[in-house]
């Protein structure tokens, strides 16, 4: 990936350690530990109600965890002297005073952050709200509020961003624009943590992934690694010869789909290249040789986030 010189190289911009929160008897977040480094976009993926927003709110001190800690740039968020200069947040674009204009809303945030007020107009221009700047936020569409929210997150010239469902309400063009903006932010050494309940959204914008289900992290890692196929499909016009060759090479294989064989990658030890070599050595003709899952992440997502009721018999809101 193309990357310009990173101006500062502090690792671990955003970390959480065993964050846990219950409301009454209902566990909402359980032992969530994650880590986001400069130069990366981490997608925080989970179904609605999986605990994403509560986790993000615990990171910025809006919700008190029952247990666990979170740090930004090495210290708890509430100890940052002027937090919006370090971490920009977009947690709820509807949480704005409807009677204030977009410009006033942004100006108040800029004053508090202590940045030059010139930045207000520049940011309004960046998010495409210049024409609507003096209209009241109450008249904005959800997409416009989302754009204003992105401008609010950027107001303090932060080094990290936490965005809760930033694609909500944006049109396809706006979503593509936001992805480019976040990619550019990360390529310049920024750290991004964004949540989404939409798999393809995360897949298109993130390079790291944390999947949460029922309040707990069920998968985490580089997107490429998580996407990597766990098995290979290999097919020959002479299945019997191919099966014999695989057995001779001590490669576990299962029959199917059809008359093809499925081979486990065994943690990366078996690759398509290895199988091609086996076939060549045994003079078996191959007509198909490919990673088996074309929708790996999708299967992963659905298998990991399948709805599991905490209390059978109760219906989740």
């Amino acid at each position: 990936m193309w990357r310009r010189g990173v101006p500062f190289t502090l690792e671990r911009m955003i970390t959480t350690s065993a964050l846990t929160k219950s409301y009454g008897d209902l566990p909402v977040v359980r032992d969530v530990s994650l880590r986001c480094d400069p130069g990366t976009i981490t997608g925080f993926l989970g179904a609605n109600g999986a605990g994403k927003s509560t986790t993000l709110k615990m990171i910025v001190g809006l919700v008190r965890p029952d247990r666990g800690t979170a740090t930004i740039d090495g210290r708890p968020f509430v100890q940052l002297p002027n937090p919006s200069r370090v971490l920009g947040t977009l947690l709820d674009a509807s949480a704005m005073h409807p009677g204030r204009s977009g410009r006033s809303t942004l100006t108040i945030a800029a004053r508090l952050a202590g940045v030059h007020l010139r930045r207000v107009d520049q940011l309004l221009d960046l998010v495409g709200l210049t024409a609507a700047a003096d209209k009241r936020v109450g008249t904005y569409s959800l997409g416009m509020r989302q754009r204003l929210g992105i401008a609010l997150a950027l107001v303090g010239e932060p080094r990290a961003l936490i965005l809760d469902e930033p694609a909500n309400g944006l049109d396809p063009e706006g979503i593509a624009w936001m992805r480019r903006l976040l990619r550019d932010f990360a390529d310049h050494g920024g750290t991004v943590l964004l949540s989404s309940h939409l798999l393809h959204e995360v897949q298109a914008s993130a390079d790291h992934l944390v999947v949460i289900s029922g309040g707990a992290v069920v998968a985490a890692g580089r997107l490429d690694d998580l996407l990597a196929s766990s098995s290979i499909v290999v097919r020959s016009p002479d299945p019997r010869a191919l099966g014999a060759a695989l057995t001779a090479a001590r490669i576990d294989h299962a029959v199917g789909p059809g008359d093809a064989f499925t081979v486990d990658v065994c943690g990366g030890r078996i690759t398509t290249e290895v199988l091609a070599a086996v076939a060549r050595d045994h003079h078996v003709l191959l007509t198909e040789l490919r990673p088996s899952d074309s929708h790996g992440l999708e299967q992963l997502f659905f298998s990991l986030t399948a709805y599991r009721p905490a209390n059978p018999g109760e219906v989740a809101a």
Partner: protein
Amino acid sequence: MTTSFPLATPVAPAPSPSVIPFSRLVRVEWTKATDTRAARWLLTLVALSTAAILTVPVVAPSTFDQTHASYLRVAALGLSILLPVVVILTFTGEWSQRSVITTFTQEPRRNRVMNAKLAVSLLMSGAGALVGGGLAAAAIAAATASGRSLEANLGVGAVASYACYVMLNVLAAVALGALLQNSAAAISATFALPAAFALIGTASSLVSEWIDMSTPWNWVLQNDWGGHLPQIIVSTVFWVVLPLAAGLWRTTRRDVG
């Protein structure tokens, strides 16, 4: 659309980022309390309702003593109707609009934000007292122009007591707003609770003199502190100190959902 985002480029950390100065917090909270159309209407209504009440001693001289101090007291009563609503909204509005999410992520030391709102409320009570004084002066001028002669009995003590009364009413509203964190509940309570205690006070002189705000705070308004200081202090603790302390405690702990 642009393909480069210079504004969204993260910058290297400043050598030593400083805490947001308290004066900046106060300025921002003052802006938030006064910059919306609704807030300006409400502030206009505060002035209008005070002016309206001040016409009573002008047109109906028999209703109030025709003295300068008496006119100032009428202004104080006028201010005490809607000024408390303005300051309540300063504390509760952000919970209703949920903009606390932005406020408390920009300054997570919630006590500092609350202190700034408290400072804004005190500034408003001072500004309100000034406006009320101006309106009282206008009413006195109108009464004088109609040929009456009013007793000029205003001393420093009477003016200070007037300002003190306005401030006490504002602080009681602040305390309810900070405690209840809900506009409708706090505004209802600021009208209903004093009435309820006044009603209980009719049955118990202990309540009417020590707890119910109307009697002890009326002594303040009348500049009649002599021998009443203990009652004034106790009722102030009850209406201001205790609910405000509980409200600050609740605010620092409340989860922002």
